[in-house]
């Protein structure tokens, strides 16, 4: 063999794959699918009210000059129940929250609000998940920070825990 270095290629390939595998084991896998809409304007939508007594939601409702949170939830979703108290805390801290209820029925939403309180200004009903798709959202619950001009600034995937509350308040304030 006149090119001895070629013989070491297999070992190099093994080393590369080994390195990749060690990386795969060591770094926790990010299973979340993040929205690619961050930094873009909210898509145009107009959702009907999710339940009686709380106004409906359209994209123009959120472009009134005031930054706020957009919470995506559902009455059938367990983590949504867990995050409800933290949404109350956020509301108490002066953060305005709009919401989208996914694949939900008016009576179920009403029961959910009755049990866990209503921190929301408006709730739109996304029964076919069409708006979720437009937002690049991958599940419930999710919370977006929306700028005063209707720009999507930040996406939080999963339920809001106590430790996320100050971070979200800061994001909303920073957008002011």
């Amino acid at each position, binding site marked *: 063999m006149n090119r001895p270095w070629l*013989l070491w290629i*297999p070992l190099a390939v*093994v080393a590369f794959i080994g390195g*990749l595998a060690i990386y*795969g*084991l060591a770094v926790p896998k990010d299973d979340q*699918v993040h929205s690619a809409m961050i930094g873009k304007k909210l898509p145009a939508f107009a959702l009907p009210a999710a339940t009686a007594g709380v106004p409906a939601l359209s994209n123009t409702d959120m472009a009134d000059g005031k930054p706020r949170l957009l919470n995506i939830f559902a009455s059938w979703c367990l983590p949504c129940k867990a995050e409800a108290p933290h949404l109350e805390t956020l509301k108490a801290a002066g953060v305005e929250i709009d919401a989208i209820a996914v694949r939900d029925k008016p009576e179920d939403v009403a029961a959910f609000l009755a049990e866990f309180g209503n921190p929301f200004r408006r709730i739109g009903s996304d029964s076919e998940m069409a708006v979720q798709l437009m937002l690049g959202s991958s599940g419930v619950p999710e919370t977006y920070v929306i700028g005063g001009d209707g720009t999507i600034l930040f996406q939080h995937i999963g339920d809001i825990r106590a430790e996320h509350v100050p971070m979200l308040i800061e994001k909303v304030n920073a957008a002011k």
Partner: protein
Amino acid sequence: MIAEAGLAALWLAAAMALLQFVGGLTLLRGGAGQLVPLIKPAAYVQGGLCAFAFFALMWLFYVTDLSVLLVASNSHIDKPMIFKLAGTWGNHEGSMLLWVAVLSVSGAAIAFFEKRIDAKTLYATLAVQGFIALGFFAFLLFASNPFERLVPAPLEGAGLNPLLQDVGLAFHPPTLYMGYVGLSIAFSFAVGALLTNQVGPAFARAMRPWVLTAWIFLTIGIAAGSYWAYYELGWGGWWFWDPVENASLMPWLAATALLHSVSVLATRNALRAWTIMLALVAFAMSMAGTFLVRSGILTSVHAFAVDPERGAFILALMLIYTSIAFVIFALRIGTVKQGEPFQLVSREGGIVANNIFLSVILAIVLIGTLYPLAAEAMGDKISVGPPYFNKATVPVMLLLMVALLIGPMLRWRRDALMRIKYWLIGAAAILVCGGLAAWKMAPDTRLFPLLGIALSLALAVAAWLPLRGRKLLRTPLPIFGMVIAHFGIAVSVFGMAEESGFSKETLTALAPGESAEIAGWKVKLDDVKPVLGDNWVAVEGEMVASKNGDTFILRPQSRQFFKPEMQTSEAALLTRWNGQLYAVIAQPDQEGDGRWQVRLWWKPYVTFIWYGGILIALGGTISLFGRMFRRAKKPAINKWERA
């Protein structure tokens, strides 16, 4: 008591593996060799002890001894006996014990039967085998002890994943494992021959039955897994290019290439270094496959027993074995003399083409499977799936088919295409006519299915031509094996091309009494009723399918399992000689309108995919028996054999 005996047997067996390894090592390092007489007995005792340990575990499952943790967490007193026994290997610990047992028994068999290679190479092979076994003993004893006790013993046992209570799936993983063990033995032979500088026809003939056995098991395992996914996932797909599927395909590709190159080495004493290389790659791929499946570092539809910690252990073993082997390869392969020469147009040339194409496909599958992980390390999240794999591999597969049309017709060493010009013209004629006929029937078909159909028709004829001019009764069985396996490839590719090019699909929603049409079939949904299973409830649709006056009943189910909670579609399949009608009942369509989502497919010749797989495995088996039989009759004499 039996559990403790099994555990003790494993420890003793590990000591035997160590003895085997150290004995071989001292011999290779030029030591006095006092341990050498112990190597073979150590292999026998190791094989016996491991077989005992495995049957001890099987006994514990047979009597459902719930004081053993593994039995308690994987079996149940009320389970049918076949699943109780299948529980022995239907879990991580048991399957590893099965692996080690088969490895050790194979080692004993090599020590006892193998007379073709010289003693030093045999000892080196057994030493490498002992080294591999040691790693797996460590894994078994330190990280996955199958005999661990549970105090206090429970009363019933937990059961087995409902999806795994399926006869097909109970035998699918051990089948693949048999293949992996076979490849590990080929690896031991290759490293042994490399260490003692004995890479030649005798070594190739000793290694070949193990490669062939491994390859037969892998073929069966992949075909069975594919059929299982086809009827269980409920969308009519039979290959998804999922990481777990790719993990089983890669060793098969390497084993297929190895199978061909090893026969060149055995009969013509050429492709020496390359055969060694393939033997190392094949085992590396089987370890990598096991790692990918167990570690769960790649997202898969088929992820069952995922455990990152054990994945790390397998990764460590894989890196140790393969990097040591490739270092030995790089250092020693220079001492392997170049083999006998041959020309481009020759049987060897055809097999080199086969090896190149298979290796390229293997590389593409490997790159495509790992690429998302590499991209993630660079900070990008991307997916690589079926569209990529199809576009990248199918052209190479078609080239492989072309090589297969010509290669087996050629003579060893050197040949002229002119000699077989009539066949070449005939093949081209079949290709063009078949392609045109398929295109005429469905003008908007894409290129790949058309080429696949044309090539498989030509190959279906070409595969038999090596028998031409031979006295059939005196033809060696391996030739029959080759012919049947190549014909199986034609059958399988025909099924794949027909399915991907000509399937018909009807997606609809039906209320009882309504019907839908597909490919000339009328399918009427007669009734929808609930069905109760052991740990599931289902809705079952009763459908009547009719065509040309024949009527058949189909009963697809949509099952809801409780523990763990999951939903599965049990498709109903109506098999005709020229295809399958595939019916699925899914969810209620809209609330309150009484309709059910119904999915219907007509899949022409889809069964050929698996018939072809069976033929391929059958060809391999005939070839294997042929070699064993012939060997028993007369020892092969070869002019390249050293005296």
